[in-house]
């Protein structure tokens, strides 16, 4: 599976929203790490996007959840994806 979101985009989103963000592939009941950006912190992992194959997790203290969700969804076309 090709990465559904570029390294550049992950780094940009991590910086803009002050979060750790990472892309995963869904395999059965597990999420397998593909790539991420932003510093690791001891915070809850929030699944902000998921499709049949892909998931995007975010860790952050105070961040604009709606804003980052909207940006991730617009990057991860097709628009039928469940956000």
């Amino acid at each position, binding site marked *: 599976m090709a990465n559904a979101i570029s390294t550049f985009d992950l780094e940009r989103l991590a910086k803009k929203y002050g979060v750790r963000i990472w892309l995963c592939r869904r395999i059965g009941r597990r999420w*397998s*790490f593909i790539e991420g950006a932003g510093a690791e912190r001891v915070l809850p992992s929030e699944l902000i996007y998921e499709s049949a194959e892909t998931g995007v997790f975010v860790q952050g203290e105070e961040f604009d959840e709606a804003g980052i969700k909207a940006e991730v969804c617009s990057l991860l076309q097709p628009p039928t994806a469940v956000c």
Partner: protein
Amino acid sequence: MHMVNDKLSTSAWVNNVIKPEEYEKYLDNGKDFIDDDKIWQQINDSVEPSPERVREILAKSFNVQTLDPTELATLMKVRDPELWQEMYEMAAKVKHKIYDNRIITFAPIYCGNFCVNNCLYCGFRADNDKEKRTKLSLAQVRDEAEAIAGRIGHKRVIAVYGEHPETDADFIAESIKTIYSVSVKTRKGHSEIRRVNINAAPFSVADLRKLQEVGIGTYQVFQETYHHDTYKKLHPADTIKGNYPWRLYVHHRAYEAGIDDVAIGCLFGLYDWRFEVMGLLYHAIELETRFGVGPHTISFPRINPASGSPLPTDPTYNKYLVSDEDFKKLVTLIRLAVPYTGMIITARERQEVRDDVMFCGCTQTDASTNIGIGGYAKNTGKQDIDEQQFMLGDTRSLEELIRDLAKRGVITSFCTAGYRCGRTGDQIMDLLKKGHEKHFCKLNAILTYREWLDDFAGEETKKLGEAVIRKEIEEVRKKTPTIFSKKLYDLTMSYYERISNGERDLYI
């Protein structure tokens, strides 16, 4: 005639397993990464170190840096018992720094004992006529998983298979799906197996993809011995297992297939333990260097009596058997050499050995273990040497183990969170090396311990467990907000409350 045809088809299957092109590309001028002469030279050239030199090396371990082989060889030369005591204590500190105050538990499920190989130390070997051969049907696999999840309360298993067309990659994939599909009602909630690791033959990339697609946890393959000549003597050349590099490079193929947690190990007692520990380190370094991800776990079983095995397990006849004292040393050395890795000590070991060595850096162990095929559902409480791969040394139940750990202030964890939110591969390596993962370990240990106590514990165990859980929660509270943010603390406590009210499988 039917039997002849079966033999022919098995023989055809065997001939088609090894794909030389899948390991030859990794060889350097035809050689693999285990250089026997170099390892012996490193061991022989090292001299007894000064206490200062030992402490320098221990400081490197504590900073979660993999040791280089000459440093490991140097530690092997320590003779002063007081320095060894420091090393035992440092191994425990390193483990605590990376994984906190928790021990993960699991159960093995033996799914079949058909095997085409003839390893001289193994009860499953093809020439062992005493072994009663069988394979679980998928319905029986379900029965086993239900017994483990519903009666004992484990959330993690390692499914074990011999190398045979009866238990090929397609069968393994189906059995994993079956195990994952189980859910059993418990006292206050429900229980299921949330992580299925496997111990199986070294497969091709194509077969490994089948296993990856059904969501296996860790793929565990042991080299058994890293010493080439010993390997050759113990694994007949006309068998699949006789091919050393096919086995050695299976973790490389697993990474190629997209499996991001692999586990290595060797069977101590086949060759000199010092060489084997060096081999494990070289293996870890090779995986880290080539893929950026070292072994998720390392195992270090010692050879035990096995049905029909011609290999002596009496020290008079086998000079490589590892004494309890040397076993404690080798476990400590592995922890210090590969500080980030998980380490598994199993019920092969006697209770007194396990209770001692577990605190030299081990992170995982099994309990209520039954290694007979279909043994959990039968639940006879007896071991039969002709129905299992070897004899167990510690038959404590999970509840007994949890109670013993609780008396020592240790929390038993059923956490499987990491691989369900992408803390795998490079990401988990990074978290482990920076010492962040322990914080997730702590919180998820609390949540899963609460589940187990409510669903399975007897009164005495519950009382001991409540004291442990109160202590752990208090530690988290004290570290909020310096280590744990207010947001994380509040979320954990809300999950804790919901679990106490019967919800299950909430994790951080």
